[in-house]
């Protein structure tokens, strides 16, 4: 049981780390997006 809780804790830590990193990056960015899939030309974001 404690192992499962440790895994959940690690997953939550990874999530918090990733979202913190994203917040820092986006806060210092100019609004452009990170798209890391394939070589297709990127269209404008529809809701901005």
């Amino acid at each position, binding site marked *: 049981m404690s*192992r*499962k809780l440790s*895994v*959940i804790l*690690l*997953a*939550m830590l*990874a*999530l918090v*780390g*990733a*979202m913190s*990193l*994203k917040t820092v*990056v986006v806060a*210092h*960015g*100019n609004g*452009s*997006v*990170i*798209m*890391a*899939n*394939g*070589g*297709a*030309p*990127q*269209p*404008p*974001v*529809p*809701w901005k």
Partner: protein
Amino acid sequence: MPGPLEYCIWLVCTLLEGAVVVCAVKSQSFRRYIFLNLYMGLSFLVSVSRYHVLNHYGMASNEYVYFYYYSDTLLTIGLYFALLNLYSLVFDEMQVEGYLRLGAVVLLGGTAWFSYAVVQQSSHRILTHFAYELSQNLYFVGLVLTYALWGAILKLRETRARLIQLVLALGVYFSAFAANYALQNLYFKAGVLRFVTPLLGCILPAAWAYCFLRVSEEDRLVPSRLAAVPR
């Protein structure tokens, strides 16, 4: 509309994505690296479909825009599972499959919940915005997980050359996109950066195709020598 150079880079990238699956089948590694190959196969199909939609409807059309962002979410989820495939291979001797699955589900569910919490009050096009937000958030989760896997490989003194190369290629890929994003923010008017982003998309399929073609499953890296301390 994209220029000839952009079309050329896109074509090379698509061919490399197909080449990964072909090389994996040729080296009889398709099933062992099943999610990596499914991700590359999906990338190939999405590239072909995007080309079709772009040619049919045009760059500024709603069809291309929505198809691009929805397919990007699908691909990012595929990349997440490819990364988990690498995790299960690195930790296969520890018999922790169940824990890895639990962690993966919790992390994916947590990311989806976080993405929904961000978009639920900020947009009227909630589904599209959610897909976009989930893709962006999973990208950062993948980045963190890849660096954690690098650390685990170093700590466990992993010697399987193919596995190390696959993980390193993924790390370089994520790092290159992060560096490109930083450069875009610094010099957002530089026209050359327009070609860099799709060019970076070729890194991962090229490295993985080379790895499946040239590095055998039995290849091992020589562990670094221990320092001889005279007594």
